């Protein structure tokens, strides 16, 4: 026989537990649902021309200074990778300090301060690939956030609320492109946000402004006359890890199969 005391205790527990999901309930607002369908305002996209990049790393330096990512910490919102494919079919990849100082050595950085030297005549092809947040249309990092600290704005940029983030790190694990990291000062998730404070003022991102070779460009996909949109619509562009279904919005020209 169940005692009155235990019945009260258990019903209290169940009712309390049921009330938690109830607290998340919100009624549908048709006006808001309609607003969601409205395709007004920009949709920021990025175009990287890997054929133009020479690996100077000015973009990484500019980004770190502009966005106050501690300069000497080995974390960065954007970075440049070097791919050296040798005649024996091997691909050597490195990105010393995220290419903050460019690529000062001919040898490939294999960690622990060691360099792997490659003979000039062994090189089949070599190129540089800048990487940054893809501001996916289906951002997995946003889906996994348990508190609503990371979200996507109407113009497609994924932002992190530094005040709201609890630092659980799910989003860092969830990003298939590895663009997220913990900010060494704020101890919350940090990522590239296309220099949101710049693009919303009509400026270019810091990395675009610091690129002397035109390898990086930012544009508005909802403007058919935008030069970046025209290239994305008419030229042979590619995206990273398409198979994940994240619908990345950073488009690459001249991508090679070695790039993952």
């Amino acid at each position, binding site marked *: 026989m169940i005692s009155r005391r235990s019945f009260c205790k258990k019903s209290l527990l169940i009712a309390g537990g049921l009330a938690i999901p109830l607290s998340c309930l919100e009624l549908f607002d048709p006006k808001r649902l309609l607003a969601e369908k409205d395709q007004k305002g920009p949709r920021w996209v990025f175009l990287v021309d890997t054929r133009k990049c020479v*690996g100077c790393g000015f973009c990484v330096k500019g980004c770190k200074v*502009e966005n106050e990512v501690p300069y000497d910490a080995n974390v960065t919102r954007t970075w440049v990778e070097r791919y*050296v494919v040798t005649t024996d079919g091997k691909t050597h990849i490195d990105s010393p300090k995220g290419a903050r100082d460019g*690529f000062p050595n001919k040898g490939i950085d294999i960690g622990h301060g060691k360099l792997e030297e490659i003979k000039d005549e062994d090189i089949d092809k070599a190129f*540089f690939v800048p990487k940054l947040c893809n501001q996916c249309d289906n951002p997995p990092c946003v889906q996994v956030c348990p508190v*609503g600290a990371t979200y996507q704005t109407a113009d497609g940029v994924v932002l992190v609320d530094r005040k709201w983030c609890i630092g659980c790190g799910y989003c860092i694990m969830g990003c298939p492109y590895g663009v997220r990291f913990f900010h060494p000062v704020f101890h919350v998730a940090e990522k590239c946000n296309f220099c949101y404070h710049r693009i919303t003022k009509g400026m270019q991102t*810091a990395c675009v402004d610091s690129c002397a070779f035109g390898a990086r460009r930012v544009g508005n996909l909802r403007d058919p006359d935008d030069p970046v949109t025209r290239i994305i619509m008419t030229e042979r562009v590619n995206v990273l890890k398409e198979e994940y279904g994240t619908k990345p919005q950073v488009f690459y020209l001249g991508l090679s199969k070695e790039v993952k």
Partner: protein
Amino acid sequence: MKSHVWRPLLVVLVVIALVLVARKVLVPADFGIGARGYMYGWHRAGNEQQWKDMPVKYKTAAHCKDCHPDKYEEMKESPHRNINCENCHGPALDHPKDPHSLTVDRSRELCARCHTRLPYPNSGRGIMKGIDPKTHNAGLDCVTCHWPHDPRKEGHKR
């Protein structure tokens, strides 16, 4: 009906009310679903403005040209014309008010970013003018012999 049904039910209702009150107090007023809907839009709306209010540090050449038209004109014709002033001079911030003067990066490492020779065929880097920093006048600043605003000119004026 006997009170053994009503009393726990009352407790349940109080618990639900407490959770709802706590939610009202703890969750900011502007927290809700944003433009991207339930799956991607949950956030504190005020945070968007907080990101927009971040200070712009790199002001671009458009900011420099009003006070330094001579340098701007010199750069316009130079093979280095695509390099932004602030890449070497540092972010303008609120220059000339704060900082009053910028610290120019005249280091070899800065030039070496592009001009270290890397023998890469089919890459823009492979056809760039490059040197080996270890053997090319080691120890000397590049600007001793090369004028960075226009590398076709020789020497630094100082």
